[in-house]
C-alpha cells in the first residue's frame, strides 16, 4: 500500500511504535487503562472508588423503584416479615412446640426472618447480576462489581428499616412486662452483619459467574435458599438441635452468624466465639473466590448470554 504524505494529513504510523520502544519522542505516560487478554481484573479498586457516585445512585434507584406504583409502598417491607412470623408462630411454636429460648416467639421469629431476608435477598440479587443488568453491561463500561455492592446496600437499608420495627415490637413487649434485655454486645452487630453481607457477596458472585453458562441456576438458588433457612437457626435455637447433629451446624456459616446476631441483640443465647471465627474464615475464602470468579466472568459474559 503506497502512502502519499500530504501537508493536510497527519502522518499515519503503520508500525506500532512500541515495536521500536519510543513514544513519539515523549516520555512514556501511564495509560488510563489497559485491556489485557492475560489479566483478569478490570475492576480495579481505584476504578470502584471513581464510580462511587454511580453506586449511590444505583442504591437510590433500586430503593425508590420499590415504592413507586405499589399499593402498600414501603409497608411491604414490614407486612411480609410480620405475616411470615405469624405463620411460624402457629406452625413451629404452637404445633411443633419448638423452643424460642426466653424470647417471646414473635420477637424470636421476627428477628430471624428479617436478618435471613437480608441475607437471602442479597444473595439472590447478586447471583442474578449478569441476567438483570446484562443489557446495560453490554453497552456501557463501569466496574461491574458496583452492581452487587449496590444491591447488598439496598437490602441493608431495608433491613435497617425492619430492625427499627423490631425495636418497636421489643418496646411493646417491655411495656407489657416482658423481660427482654438489650446489652452492649449490640455494638458487635455491624461485624456480624458485615460477615453475612460478605458471604452473600461471595456466594452470589460465584453463582453469578456460573449463570453466564448455566442460566437455570437462578431457579436453584431460590429453592436452595428456602431449604437453607431451615438449617440456619432462624426458626429454632441451637439448644433445640440434638447433640449428634451439632457438628453439622459448624459447617454452616449462616447458623453461626444468625446465632451471633441474636446474641448481640438480646444477650440470651450463650455463644462460644470459636464457631463464629470458623464461619468468618469460610466466608472470607468464599468472598475472595467469588470476586475472582466474578471478575473472570465479567470479561466474557457478553459472548455467551
Amino acid at each position, binding site marked *: 500500500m503506497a502512502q502519499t504524505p500530504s501537508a493536510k494529513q*497527519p502522518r499515519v504510523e503503520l508500525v506500532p511504535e512500541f515495536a521500536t520502544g519510543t513514544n513519539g519522542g515523549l516520555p512514556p505516560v501511564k495509560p488510563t487503562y489497559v485491556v489485557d487478554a492475560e489479566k483478569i481484573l478490570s475492576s480495579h479498586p481505584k476504578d470502584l472508588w471513581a464510580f462511587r457516585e454511580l453506586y449511590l445512585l444505583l442504591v437510590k434507584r433500586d430503593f425508590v423503584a420499590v415504592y413507586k406504583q405499589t399499593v402498600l409502598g414501603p409497608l411491604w417491607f414490614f407486612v411480609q416479615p410480620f405475616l411470615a412470623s405469624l405463620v411460624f408462630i402457629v406452625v413451629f411454636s404452637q404445633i411443633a412446640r419448638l423452643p424460642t429460648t426466653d424470647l417471646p416467639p414473635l420477637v424470636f421469629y421476627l428477628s430471624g426472618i428479617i436478618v435471613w431476608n437480608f441475607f437471602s435477598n442479597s444473595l439472590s440479587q447478586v447471583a442474578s447480576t449478569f441476567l438483570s443488568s446484562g443489557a446495560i453491561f453490554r453497552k*456501557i463500561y463501569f466496574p461491574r462489581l458496583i452492581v452487587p455492592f449496590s444491591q447488598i446496600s439496598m437490602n441493608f437499608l431495608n433491613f435497617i428499616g425492619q430492625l427499627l420495627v423490631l425495636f418497636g415490637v421489643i418496646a411493646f413487649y417491655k411495656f407489657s412486662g416482658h423481660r427482654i434485655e438489650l446489652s452492649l454486645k449490640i455494638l458487635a452487630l455491624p461485624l456480624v452483619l458485615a460477615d453475612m453481607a460478605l458471604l452473600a457477596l461471595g456466594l452470589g458472585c460465584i453463582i453469578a459467574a456460573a449463570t453466564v453458562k448455566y442460566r437455570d441456576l437462578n431457579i436453584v438458588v431460590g429453592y436452595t435458599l428456602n431449604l437453607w433457612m431451615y438449617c440456619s437457626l432462624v426458626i429454632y435455637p441451637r439448644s433445640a438441635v440434638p447433640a449428634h447433629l451439632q457438628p453439622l451446624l459448624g459447617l454452616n456459616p449462616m447458623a453461626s452468624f444468625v446465632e451471633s446476631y441474636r446474641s448481640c441483640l438480646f444477650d440470651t443465647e450463650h455463644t462460644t466465639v470459636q464457631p463464629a471465627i470458623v464461619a468468618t474464615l469460610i466466608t472470607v475464602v468464599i468472598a475472595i473466590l467469588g470476586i475472582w470468579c466474578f471478575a473472570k466472568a465479567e470479561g466474557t459474559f457478553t459472548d455467551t448470554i
Partner: protein
Amino acid sequence: MSVVIQAHNISKRFFLGERNQRAFFEDVSVKVIRGLRQLARGRLAPEQNSSRDFWALKDISFQISQGQTLAIIGENGAGKSTLLKILSRITRPTTGTVKVYGRLASLLEVGTGFHPEFSGRDNIFLNGAMLGLSRKDVRKRFDRIVDFSGLAKFIDVPVKNYSTGMYMRLAFSVAAHLNPEIVILDEVLAVGDTVFQKKCFDRLEEIIEEGHAAILVSHGMAHVRSLCQICLWLKDGRIQMFGPTDEVASCYEKATTHEVVAHYEKQTAEQDGSAHPSAMAVLVQWSVQSKEASVTHSIIASQAEVTFRFEIELNPGTEISHGRLSFSLADAQGLILFTHQDGLGQIKGGKFWATLELPFLPLKPGEYIVSCTILEADHPVAFLRATPELTVLKNESFAQSGYHGLLNLPARLSVERVPHP
C-alpha cells in the same frame, strides 16, 4: 504526537455451535467420559473444539495519536462492534493488549440504563454517573443537556411517560455532553426528526473537534471522508487496510461497488424479464477522457468536458435495426444519478465504438458505476457494465463544495443589502 490508543495483536474468539448451549450435566458427563477414556488410553488427547471456533477478530494492531480521528469501516459482521467493545472494556479480548491514554467514553447506544420510573432529571444524573461523570460534572452540564434536548418542560416527568422520540432525544443529549478525551461514536446515534438529526450530526462533529481523539463507525463514506484522517477497514475480522482515509475509503468503495453492481445487474435482469440480457453483445473495453488529466478509468473532479468511449462487440450474425443505447451512471451505493438514451441506428454484428460526450460531470470524488443497455424496439437485448468502475479523483486546486450531497459545483455566494424604498 503522543499515542492515545495503542492496540496490539487483538484477537477475539467465539465458540459457535453447541459448546455453550450444553446443560451442566452434559458438560460434566462429557468431561468425565473424556477423562476416563484418557485414563484408559493412558495419554492425554488434545481437546477438539477448533472446528467450532470462530475468530471475530484476528491480530488487530493499530494506534491513534492525539488529534487523529479514526474511522472503522467494513461490512456487517466484519468485527467492528467487537473491536469497539474491546476498546471500551465491555468484553475481554482472547489475545492482545490495548492501552488507552485518557478518559474514554463510548457512545455505542444511547438510553441504556435509563430507569422508567425516574424523572428526566434523575435519569440525567444516573446516566451521567454510568458514563463516568461526577455529580458536580453533571450539574455543570445540566442546563446545556436540557437545552439541547428541548425537553425543559418535561424534565420532571418520569421517562416512562415520554414518547420514544423524547426518550431518544434526552438520551442523546446526555451522551453528547460528556466531553470525554477520547470518544467512540456510532453514527446511528443520530436520532429523532430531521431537525434534531441535523443537530446531532453537528454535535458529533463538535465532539470530535473538542476531544483528543475519536473513533467513528460509519457506513456513510461522505462522513468518513470529511471527519476522519485515518481509516481502518476490517474484513472478516482482519485488517484489510489501514492508512489515510482517502486511500482506504476508495479501495473500500471499489470493493463494495462490485457487490452493489452484481445486485444491480441481477435486479435489472429480473426487471427486464430477459434471462440472459448480455448474450447479444459484450463490452470489450471502455475509457473516459477529460481535458484535465485523466487515466483510462478515472477523471479528476473538475468543470471540464468529459468523453466516454465504449467499444462494443455485437455477436456475429446478429443485427439490430432500430437500436437504442441507454447510458446510466450510478453512485457506489447504486443510486442512479444520470441516464441518457439515444438512437444507435442500424448496426450489424462486429465491433463498434459508442462515444458519449458530457459538457461537464460535477461529481464528488469516489467510485461510480457506469453501465450501458442496448435496446431493440424498447426491449433490452444487452446489459453492459463498465469494469473497472469510474473513479473520480480529488482535485486539490479545484474549489470543493460542502461535504454533504452528491454534486461538486463551484457555487458562489454574494450578499447585497436590499435598499430601503
